[in-house]
């Protein structure tokens, strides 16, 4: 960890004893991002793409400048393929809605067993409405079962929509391989990158997907803003999910023609300050984050957690792959409810997430009610892990009356 990283987050000054291990839910926001958003409100608060005044020009330039930054950030050549959304969920809904006319009864849509509700429910609806079959790639020891992938992806597959990294198990999904398999059968491949942005380098060309969605607030940006990237030829054939101001070429009382990309998918006044904040967050990620450091910290945390399982038979079980290469680590402790643990951890200043993590079907599939999830960010260090372990020990003792 860079020495001054915590100093870049006022929230640590305001909560001096905070051990924040809930980065999978949202990362904290560095001061420079907040400052950049304030700048918009203080110096050039205006709507974009309209208005003949200099404030509006400046706002438009800032907003559109971020589109270029995002394109570079995920290695996209054309900035008009970058659509600003309210977040990953919004992006997936735009896709599922927009692809409706391409899906018919004899088709199938392929997901994995570990999807977040955001990458499940929109496809459920599409399946209900079109009669297309929803298929799931099975897991094997929390990893994607490639034999299962081979059997479910076939010539009738129209869409393969998969998480890059599971928000529950931390499984790194072999997206390159799965996108290649989708390509071979002519299916559209979509990656839910909510848990991978900000934690690893994203290169959509290397992944080989047709669309990639993510949220700013999981990569040190503000909430309520995200990105949908999709190939131009795909976006051009998709029906826009929202209609309204800013997305038309021409309109009369009876009809309209949609604007060119990207405006076609950005109806209404967007989250301008949020997009500007996202631009600054990209700068933060690119200049401040050492992904290797975070990986090593996760390795350390997993090793320390496993020590708990062997001391006094407390039976901690990791709910995730043995070789975890993500920033998300889930576990359960035998005979102890995750809510009891979370309550006592919270009391000791440790912020973790418990429950089903918006992946209820996965919980049923794994046969568990919920997990305790710790998830790391740029400001976490070994000291955080040690405090977590001490607090876990103490909580277990309190609950077990030992």
């Amino acid at each position, binding site marked *: 960890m860079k020495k001054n990283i915590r100093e870049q987050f006022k929230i640590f000054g305001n909560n001096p004893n905070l051990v924040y291990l809930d980065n999978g839910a949202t990362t904290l926001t560095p001061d420079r991002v907040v400052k950049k958003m304030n700048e918009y409100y203080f110096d050039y608060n205006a709507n974009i793409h309209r208005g003949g005044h200099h404030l509006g020009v400046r706002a438009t330039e800032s907003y559109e400048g971020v589109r270029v930054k995002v394109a570079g950030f995920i290695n996209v050549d054309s900035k008009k393929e970058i659509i600003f959304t309210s977040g990953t969920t919004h992006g997936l809904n735009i896709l599922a809605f927009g692809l409706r006319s391409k899906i018919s009864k004899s088709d199938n849509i392929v997901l994995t067993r570990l999807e977040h509700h955001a990458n499940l429910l929109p496809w459920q609806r599409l399946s209900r409405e079109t009669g297309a079959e929803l298929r799931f790639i099975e897991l094997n020891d929390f990893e994607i079962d490639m034999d299962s992938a081979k059997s479910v992806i076939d010539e009738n597959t129209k869409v393969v929509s998969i998480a890059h990294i599971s928000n529950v198990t931390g499984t790194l999904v072999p997206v390159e391989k799965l996108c290649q398999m989708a390509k071979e059968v002519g299916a559209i491949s979509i990656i839910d990158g909510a848990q991978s942005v900000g934690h690893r380098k994203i290169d959509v060309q290397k992944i080989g997907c047709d669309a990639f969605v993510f949220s700013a607030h999981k990569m040190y940006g503000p909430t309520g803003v995200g990105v949908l990237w999709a190939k131009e030829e795909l976006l051009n054939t998709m029906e826009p999910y929202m209609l309204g101001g800013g997305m038309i070429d021409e309109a009369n009382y009876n009809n309209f023609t949609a604007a060119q990309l990207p405006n076609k998918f950005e109806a209404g006044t967007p989250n301008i300050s949020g997009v500007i904040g996202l631009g600054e967050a990209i700068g933060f990620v690119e200049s401040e984050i050492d992904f290797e450091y975070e990986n090593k910290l996760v390795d350390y945390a997993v090793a320390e957690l496993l020590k708990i399982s062997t001391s006094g038979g407390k039976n901690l079980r990791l709910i995730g792959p043995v070789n975890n290469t993500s920033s998300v680590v889930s576990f359960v402790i035998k005979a*102890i*409810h995750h*809510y*009891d643990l979370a*309550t*006592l951890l919270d*009391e000791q200043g440790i912020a973790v997430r418990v429950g089903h993590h918006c992946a209820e079907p996965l919980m049923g599939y794994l046969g568990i*009610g919920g997990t305790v999830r710790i998830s790391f960010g740029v400001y976490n260090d070994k000291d955080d892990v040690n405090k977590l372990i001490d607090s876990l020990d103490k909580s277990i003792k*309190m*609950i077990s009356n030992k």
Partner: protein
Amino acid sequence: MLIDKKIEQIKSDFDILPGWEERYEYIISLGRNLAPLATEFKTDEYLVRGCQSRVWMRAYKKDEKVFYEADSDALITKGIIALLLAVVNGASIKEVANIDFGFLDDIGLKSHLSMSRVNGLQSMIKKIKSYYI
């Protein structure tokens, strides 16, 4: 015992516990000692919605008094249930309707419990008041 007296008793029980650890250990011990709910009532029908750990609750009337039985899969939740039941069990319908559960603030529970649990607490209180009223 009058409801007010029961509440005063709980408050003074907590007053002598100096810190969050003692308070939670006490709640945990109450949870551990809570009589389990018969399995036949641990069904969706008796599930209290809005709690993040599962809570089941039933109620019955005897000689115009109301009695509750409840259970949870989380120990701290069971402890909180024990506190609630200690106050409401054996009260009249009118008394239950008028109970002010604000005493839970006075024993420092709300400030110590995470928001989801506080919401769960509201759900339990609502459920208690929903029977026969």
